[in-house]
């Protein structure tokens, strides 16, 4: 079994590739090898000993599907891949579109459908939640500074300004909103989301849906430490039936297929959970799930192979992850190999 995993960028804004691979390797009956697919020669996953057997550089999805497919074909010829697990948001549309072609080549995928990707797209989430009585913060979509200006009477500060793909800023007045709008639109395009700011604690759930509405696994986590980029740097699994039931409802209503991360905020005023985001892939902290007893990445592999997977019924509450920085030492030769040739055997 040869599995290719993307998102080896275990940086301060980490991709989930490395923890997904670690999860697979943790499974007792996992027999297979892992190929890393990286976008940058300096993706840390390439330099971690014993993580991947080989690593290949692939072109960014923003460069178009044709070159990405060409590159995968070339890698497939050498490696005979059985399965690809894309782990980054921005890749998913591309892989969903490429799915028929990849399947034809004999490569399996276990991805959300296009409709599911669209439901979770930040601009549609509001409506989905409204239809299903799930609480969300108030949202406005803006596509120009003019729109933003027109909204100024409706926005209460502080507010959150979010990019359509990534990044969010808390703003305290119109000028700050304008500044963040410009910054985010230049980077991620339109529309920009202006969201009501809710006071409370952040809780996240990693989950896996099998596509029928069933929740194969769901592990909730409270962030213990949040970096200035808003990333969880430490977290702990919690015992709260409400958040699990809410997550199961979302997976059921969307008939979610593949891994996902649900981000919530628990209002400090009312104690209710508000859904902030559905991320259509495992989070970078997914390694916490197998450590607490629910190996969802491995379950995803089994689902991709068409095997039946039992629903995880429990997990160990109080399991903690603490992220760390760890310098990997390498040599210019390794860097040259990956930068100039684009592939490397580890």
């Amino acid at each position, binding site marked *: 079994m040869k599995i290719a995993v993307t998102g080896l960028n275990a940086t301060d804004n980490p991709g989930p590739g490395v923890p997904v691979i670690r999860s697979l390797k943790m499974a007792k009956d996992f027999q297979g090898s892992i190929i890393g697919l990286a976008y940058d020669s300096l993706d840390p996953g390439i330099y971690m000993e014993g993580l991947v057997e080989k690593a290949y550089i692939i072109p960014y999805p923003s460069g178009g599907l044709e*070159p990405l497919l060409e590159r995968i074909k070339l890698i497939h010829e050498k490696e005979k891949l059985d399965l690809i697990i894309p782990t980054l948001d921005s890749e998913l549309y591309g892989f969903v579109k490429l799915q028929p072609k990849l399947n034809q080549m004999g490569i399996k995928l276990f991805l959300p459908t296009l409709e599911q990707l669209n439901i979770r797209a930040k601009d549609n989430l509001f409506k989905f939640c409204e239809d299903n009585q799930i609480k969300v913060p108030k949202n406005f979509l803006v596509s120009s500074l003019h729109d933003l200006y027109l909204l100024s009477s409706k926005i209460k500060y502080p507010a959150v300004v979010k990019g359509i793909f990534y990044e969010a800023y808390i703003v305290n007045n119109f000028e700050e909103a304008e500044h963040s709008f410009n910054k985010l639109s230049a980077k991620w395009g339109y529309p920009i989301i202006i969201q009501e700011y809710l006071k409370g604690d952040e809780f996240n759930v990693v989950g896996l849906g099998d596509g029928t509405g069933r929740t194969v696994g769901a592990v909730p986590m409270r962030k213990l430490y949040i970096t200035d980029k808003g990333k969880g740097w430490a977290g702990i699994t919690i015992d709260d039936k409400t958040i699990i039931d809410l997550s199961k409802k979302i997976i059921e209503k969307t008939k979610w297929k593949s891994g996902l991360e649900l981000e919530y905020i628990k209002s400090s005023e009312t104690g209710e959970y508000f859904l902030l985001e559905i991320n259509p892939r495992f989070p970078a902290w997914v390694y916490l799930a197998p450590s607490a007893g629910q190996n969802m990445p491995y379950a995803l592999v089994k689902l991709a192979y068409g095997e039946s997977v039992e629903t995880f019924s429990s997990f160990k509450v109080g399991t903690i992850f603490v992220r760390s920085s760890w310098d990997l030492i390498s040599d210019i030769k390794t860097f040259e190999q990956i930068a100039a040739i684009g592939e490397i055997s580890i």
Partner: protein
Amino acid sequence: MSTKKRYERPIITKYQSGLMNKFGSGPSAKAKTSIDEVAVSKLVEEYGSPLFVMSERQLRNNQQNAIRIFRTRYPKVQFAWSYKTNYLNAVCSVFHQEGSLAEVVSEFEYDKAKLLGIKGSNIIFNGPDKSRAALQKAIKDNAKIHIDHFDELYEIIDLCNSENLKANVAIRVNMDVGVYPLWDRFGFNYENGEAWQAIKRIMSEKSLKLTGLHTHIGTYMMTAEAYRIAASKLASLANSIKREFDIKLDYIDMGGGFASNNTLIGQYLPAEQIIPSMEQYADAISSGMFEMNATGSDLPALILETGRALVDNAGYLITTVLANKRLSTGRRAIIIDAGVNILFTSFWYKHKISPAQESGVHVEDSSLYGPLCMNIDLIRESILLPAVKKGEHLVIEDVGAYAMTQWMQFITMRPNVVMIMQDGTVELIRKSEALNYILDRELLPKQLKLK
């Protein structure tokens, strides 16, 4: 004689983290040596550069495909070719041969369609600018007049009454479909009851026959759902009309606005990955349409005025490299002979641009400038291109929509447009302009004549 190695410019690329890597290096490195099996070099040799090329095969494929997709979802489907998107006679004729009506938004376009041989009853007359004379002509021709505002409605009533005419009319309706910006400057608003008011006014006039309802919710719509909402709002209007006045409409015109494969500037992912497919648009529209209280032959026809999505990928612009330059920052700049005056769409699209000859695999981040002596003449701020020499060609793809109607004559003449026919022959469909084309229109006062 020994064979020499294929030459490629020497290139050095600095490694920078986070930038595009060269593996699978962009689609731009792949050569587009021919269009519909006709060599680009041959086209330039015969018709010059820059050169617009239309593909008859692609046009027909697009139209037939769209008809098939919509007819498998809704029983009565009629396309109307959106003249403003591309009104070259050859292009319009292909669509008319495929069964399309003409959709025009000005008297100029109306006359153009008539001259091409289209009957008035097969012309949809849209837009906010219809002169009294134009309206009179359209009414007499039995054209489908889509009323944009009350002033126009009263003008038509007045015309019909004073000249004892009968007019077939529809109204354009604007509405909130959850998409910004709201196109409420065209037509009558649905939510505030203006549309219903216009309908009642029409129904009270014996000289007017209400034949349909029309909407056009926007352009380059990235969500199919908006069309479902729009169709269901028109369906609900149609239901009210049936209930109140007991009449069946001939058609519901859902307008156009489907996105093409071009990626907008400021859009992170390429369009191919995020725009809805024609099937998704069709699913959305038909599911909204079926909210009508009618079945079988009582259902009105569904008219579509799709322009961009049917013509964009059938158009190419071949251009020639005039010079390679280094900017003061060390950045590479390429100057080509096609500027923003003939490729307006480069202001909002990241067109796909490929070299027309094999050029090696090393690509370099470059800026692509047009030939105009103006700073705004930028075809692309940043594009990965392999080394291209002076005199070599680039092919700019997906330029079939708007480029050939919004282009302007500026410091030089507009170039030839050819069509590659289905049988592989090449036909000139618009001759490049000559100096006389401009001078014929100019008048020089006697006292300004130079001795």
